[in-house]
């Protein structure tokens, strides 16, 4: 057993998930895509932690590694003080119930040949929740009511529902096993704006009623700003900034966070501002730039940024991985 950082529900320590790159007839490993490369992150009960970043930054892989849909290459995932990334499958099973996921595309996340009742009850079957099938059906009806679906429709198939309703089914299915942590991986990204608002309101209600903790993985900063308690910004496998949502949006410290925020188009007709703030493209995670991964796109880089790994600068309210953050407070530096 390892003690968790002051009351954290889940803690990632030095988490690494690397995917091998194979080449040639012998399929030798010639390199690695370091999708997640040394992530430290604590998630506290009842909070909504947003993990944001652009495609390829590793945010989805973090979620999948926590669920062990992919195996970690190094580091640990601590839940209740137990490193669940290292457990044998049989011992991991009970933890799988504690963490559930809602994915982006509710169309492909549901078995088209299973009724809604069977999809929602599947997890109860796996964890032997409910004494009989009748009891499980009763619970499915309750869950459907909680996500504002008509329980009368439980014998229908996914194609008979709209995108928003299908996402409600996925949420009900995740909640069926009574998880503590719900990972929402771009859960509202495929939905129309008016439907997205319905689902965000539903998630807020459920969080309050069931004391849920959310890891909200998204690229949509509008949703993050509205919804998140804390924000972790990821770039090429690493977290570059972490802090309370209000502070991140008001006073971002990392140049990449600043660029991300500047690229959100305003809705205020008086300000037309979109200012492209990051230069060029996101590099491939298979071959990240040396030193600070962000330096080729950074507008304020120093000569050393291309050589030296940026320090992790710790602040009272979070961290920032940038050499320029060092002077910003009486910060404590962590050794690399």
């Amino acid at each position, binding site marked *: 057993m390892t003690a968790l950082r002051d009351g954290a529900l889940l803690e990632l320590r030095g988490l690494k998930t690397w995917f091998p790159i194979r080449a040639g007839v012998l399929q030798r490993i010639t390199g690695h895509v370091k999708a997640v490369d040394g992530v430290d992150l604590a998630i506290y009960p009842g909070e909504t932690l947003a993990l944001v970043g*652009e495609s390829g930054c590793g945010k989805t892989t973090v979620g999948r590694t926590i669920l062990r849909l992919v195996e970690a290459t190094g580091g640990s995932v601590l839940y209740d003080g137990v490193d669940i990334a290292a457990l044998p499958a049989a011992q991991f099973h009970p933890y799988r119930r504690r963490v559930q996921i809602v994915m982006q595309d509710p169309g492909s996340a549901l078995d088209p040949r299973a009724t809604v009742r069977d999809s929602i009850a599947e997890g109860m079957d796996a964890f032997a929740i409910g004494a009989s099938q009748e009891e499980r059906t009763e619970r499915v009806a309750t869950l459907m009511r909680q996500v504002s679906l008509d329980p009368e429709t439980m014998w229908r198939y996914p194609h008979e529902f709209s995108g928003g309703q299908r996402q409600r089914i996925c949420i009900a299915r995740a909640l069926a096993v009574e998880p503590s942590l719900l990972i929402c991986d771009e859960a509202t990204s495929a939905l129309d704006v008016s439907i997205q608002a319905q689902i*965000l309101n539903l998630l807020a209600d459920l969080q309050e009623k069931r004391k849920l903790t959310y890891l909200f993985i998204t690229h949509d900063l*509008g949703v993050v700003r*509205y919804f998140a308690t804390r924000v972790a910004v990821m770039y090429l496998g690493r977290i570059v900034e972490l802090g309370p949502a209000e502070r991140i949006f008001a006073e971002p410290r990392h140049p990449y966070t600043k660029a*991300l925020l500047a*690229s959100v*188009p305003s809705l205020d007709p008086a300000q037309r501002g*979109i200012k492209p703030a990051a230069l060029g493209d996101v590099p491939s995670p298979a071959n990240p730039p040396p030193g600070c991964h962000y330096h080729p796109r950074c507008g304020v880089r120093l000569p050393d940024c291309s050589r030296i790994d940026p320090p992790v600068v710790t602040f009272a309210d979070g961290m920032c991985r940038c050499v320029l953050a060092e002077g910003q407070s009486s910060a404590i530096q962590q050794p690399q």
Partner: protein
Amino acid sequence: MSAPLLEIERLAISFPAEHGRVAVVDRVAFTVAPGETVALVGESGCGKSITALAVMRLVPKPGRIEPGSVIRFDGRDILPLPVTDMRNLRGGKIGMIFQEPMTSLNPVTTVGSQVEEAILLHARLPAREARKRVVEMFARVGIPDPEQRFDAYPHQLSGGLKQRVMIAMAMAMRPRLLICDEPTTALDATIRAQILDLIRDLAATTGTAVLIITHDFGVVNAVADRVCVMYAGQIVETGTREELLGRPRHPYTQGLLRSIPRPEARGGRLEEIPGAVPRPGQWPSGCRFHPRCPVAFARCPVEVPGETRVSPTQSAWCHLVEEARP
């Protein structure tokens, strides 16, 4: 304002269904002037993309543009044009870019030769000149090392660069109208800002008219001069960017804008539009928005609303707006 380059009147598009044909778009009318950027906004299934395809006469079969529809380009109705004339217009005077740059490019040919092919199809140019034009266009749309990138295959380029190639291809013939269907939806935030900036810059410097299809009001605010909001196959409100984002009058436009998560709304509830977008063939009677409308009244389910002008540039199709008028 100069005479419109594109004029659409009474556009209706239908698809066959179990019982007869079902209209997916009807009563659509708008114009785009040279140098102007007009946005068609709406949620999925509202008919915005099929409207853009109709302008290129690319409505997929068995869909068809209904008789009585008018699409005038540069003063000439293009709907009766022979296929060969239409082909010259497409890719020549009218350029188009799509949402998915990945699926729009041929994976087994270099990107440079694909753009070159498009140029050679429309202009009599020696091959060397065409190549030069491609490299110029690549540089113009901000592709680094344009000479080297000519010989790159699509898979060697990032999503942002592929979209720049698509824009270069669309702009290579110096079109007078550029149609962009969700040009930045598949792109990351920092890249989206770069591409929107590029589209706005191209429109401003070349005087190209732009018709942009999007579901994102942030994109509208960034590039549009005028906006048409579509719902269930019809335009329900039109106006300038300032009018629609600042003083929307149709309950649907108002609801859409209020349902976008904004920082001011933090901690509170988002305004929802109840229910779901109706499917073609299941359009509600009267005003098609009435089952989801928070302010619907007796007239709404029984009477189709007409156009109410609320300013010289803003109109809404709504009974409430009509009755509120002095």
